[in-house]
């Protein structure tokens, strides 16, 4: 049961982040951090199908995480996301068209390994 929840979290987490990134890039950069600008961002989100779909994926991930946290400790919930670091970097390169070179691959790999080690 724990590992099924871990898999659900990894996949829905990855989908959510990729959809949110695509949606926010399409919506345009948040130029400053004034409340008015941020309120405008929130209003636009409700008309942004990519971000709304991303929220759907995040909701699945969130409820799976709630379940996992109720039967396991936080340290068990942490490695669930380790897999999604590499998966998300892969999708960032090939779907989002980001310039992923050795530094970012190394960074994602180090973080994924580090997250696994943290669970010991």
């Amino acid at each position, binding site marked *: 049961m724990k590992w099924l929840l871990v898999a659900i979290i990894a996949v829905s987490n990855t989908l959510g982040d990729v959809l949110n990134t695509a949606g926010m*890039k*399409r919506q345009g950069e948040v130029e400053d*951090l004034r409340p008015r600008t941020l309120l405008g*961002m929130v209003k636009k989100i409700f008309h942004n199908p*990519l971000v709304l779909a991303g929220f759907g994926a995040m909701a699945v991930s969130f409820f799976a995480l709630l379940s996992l946290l109720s039967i396991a400790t936080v340290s068990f919930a942490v490695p669930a996301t380790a897999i999604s670091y590499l998966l998300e970097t892969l999708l960032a390169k090939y779907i989002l*068209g980001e310039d992923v070179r050795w530094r970012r691959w190394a960074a994602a790999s180090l973080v994924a390994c*580090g*997250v696994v080690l943290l669970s010991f």
Partner: protein
Amino acid sequence: METSVQPAVGKIGNRSGWGKTQILVLLVVVTNVFGNIFLSRGMHQVGRIVSASPFDYLRAFANPWTILGICVLIVWILSDLALLSRADLSFVLPVTASGYVLVAFFGHFLLHDHISWARWTGILLITGGVVLAEETPTRTTTGPPEHLLPGHKR
């Protein structure tokens, strides 16, 4: 519509843009860490829930720690979206992983958790990943991903 075929490295991640991006990174990390700590505390007080029905989770919302955790996580989601509007996902991911380091130090110095050698190694690897990602430009694409726009034919 601008294309993202040729990444304009160095032109986009300028100094003035970095300040706000950095503030957002900090906000994302802190709200994520504390949101999860509060939520975890709440869920442990509520007890075991494994169900496919969202209604079974409503019980958890009666707990003040759960409510606080969810409020902080809403701030996290919004600051994460603002950050993703400005920076690459492959930049944001490793950089915001510094939250794990924060959790470990928080546990060690405030809750006096024992941190094993394996965990110290993990913290070191994550820190290395954060530093490496920080050396890359914050954004390497110009417009939105083309093929995700309406009307695009692959």
